[in-house]
Each structure stands twice: as C-alpha cells, then as structure tokens.
C-alpha cells in the first residue's frame, strides 16, 4: 500500500485512481490507513462480494488473496496479477492505457 501511495503522483499523470479493498472493518482500515499515512480510499468489503466477483478470495479462505486489477474507464478489467504488486509493471501498463485513451 505504501508503494501505491508513493506512486500517486504518477497514477495522477496517467489518469488513474487507486482503491484498496479488504474484508477488514471500517475502524480497522481507518487506523491502518492512518498508521501508513495513506490518502487514497480503502473499501471495507466485509461480505466479500467484490473480492469474490474478481476471484480474489481463494476457496475455503476467510480473507482475500493479494490481487491487483486495473479497470479501464469502460469498466473492463484490463490487468490482473496475483501476489505482491509489481509497481513498475503497473505503471507501464497505466502509461500504455493512458496513451490508448488519448488516441480514442
């Protein structure tokens, strides 16, 4: 999450916004965001419907697995990677996506 916070100025450049989603409750996320000095929104998805809808919740597990997805302005998932975020890969993808958007 800190990595995303560091990259906010670059996401801004590429017309992207970042949201974090977790099964934790709002209060937990509030303190967690404060502890890490995060300024982007964290969504509390206790019922897990959002994570389940994008395959982030492994069968039989009570929490989401780590997953980064990029949704374009039409709502289409253009990028999905499990595990720790590869920030350089994400930035290069957003740059490409932004360039595509500029041409259309």
């Amino acid at each position, binding site marked *: *999450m*800190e*990595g*995303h*916070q*560091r990259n906010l*100025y*670059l*996401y801004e*450049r*590429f*017309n*992207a*916004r*970042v*949201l*974090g*989603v*977790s*099964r934790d409750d709002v209060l937990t996320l509030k303190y967690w965001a404060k*502890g*890490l*000095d*995060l300024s982007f929104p964290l969504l509390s998805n206790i019922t897990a419907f*959002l*994570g389940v809808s*994008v395959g*982030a919740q492994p069968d039989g597990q009570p*929490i*989401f*697995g*780590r*997953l*980064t*997805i*990029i*949704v*374009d*302005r039409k709502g289409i998932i*253009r990028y999905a990677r499990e*595990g*720790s*975020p*590869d*920030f*350089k890969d*994400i*930035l*290069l993808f*957003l*740059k490409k*996506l*932004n360039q595509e*958007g*500029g041409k259309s």
Partner: protein
Amino acid sequence: MKKRILTALSLVLVLAWVSGCATSGPSRPVPYKLTPQGMVIWEDEYEFLPPPPDWKLLRVEDPTGDINFGFTHADPGPFPSVTTMAYDEDPFGCSPGFENREREFFKRFLFNAILQFQILEKKKVQVVGGEGLQVDVEGKDPVKGEKVRARVVFGKRGDRIVGFYITQWRPMDGVYDMLTFDIFDKFVKSFQFLKRSFYETL
C-alpha cells in the same frame, strides 16, 4: 468535457494485503563490476565505493524493491554484534519531503525488533548531488539486553526519496565501533546515479 471524462480513465484496485516478506531466490549472474579505481558499478545504474573485502554482500530478491543491496559485517563480540548497511530505492514512508518521510520512516524502521528509538542527531547533508537529511538514532531493548545504533541518510533521486542506512547491533553493555560508520559515510558520499531512474523516464 473530454478531459473530465478522461480523468476517470482507469482505476487500480488493490484487493487485500498481507505483510510482504523479502525472500531469497535462485542464484543469478553477478550484477556488478569493479573499476580499476576500486569503485563498484552496480547494474550500470549506480557507482559507489564498496566497504572492505571482509564485508559480505547482501542481495534481496524482492519485487517491491525494499532493499536493492547492502553489505553485512560480523563484528567481534557476543551476539548480536553485527553491522549492516544498505541502499534502499524506496525507504519506508511515502512523502516526497525529508521531514515527513523521516517521521514515516521511523514508524517502520526495525519494526520487528520493537525498539523505542531516540534521535541522537539530525542534520542536513549533501548526498547524491543534492541536499539530504542524516539522522542518527539509538534503540534499546532492555528485555533482550540488546541495543542498536543506526544512521539513516535520505537523499533524492528525481522526485523520489531514496535511503541509505547502517545498523550496528550490540549487547547492552557492548561498545559501538564508530569507525564502521566512517566506512558507511564513504559509501554514501561516493554514491552516484549513472542514469535516470525508471520513474524519471515514465
């Protein structure tokens, strides 16, 4: 109008998180070369004066780039007498300014050791061709009977803050070897970027 539509071009969704840990991977080719002048060229990206040969190289295979590389030295004396220094492309914290970054950094630095740090000295320094901030701290663990002295130097690479640090662990009644901090200072002072960072080329 088009501009307003484009502001919501894309959205990065990050689902869940767990604490990330650096892991060692399979061996790969040596990422550095030595110059006749005794400098190290690291992946054609950095140049620096390495510590003496009895320091061991630390490489961390970490996709988030927590630590790019560092060096460690087993010091004489009982556990935990060891000194480690490192260059970090993305030190803890997020702020692009030194003062805020320092505050954020020390919330996480050596977090697992559960130490209370006391700032011993804080001063502006010149590092990697620009202004930087050097902070000396000491942390103590009276339960384990251990202490650590550290120096952290924040510098800038483009818009982003990079960090250098040295940590020297000792038993509570042990004596720090300040000459080792001179080796670290030479490492930091000699450090140069040989090309623009990934972030500067975006």
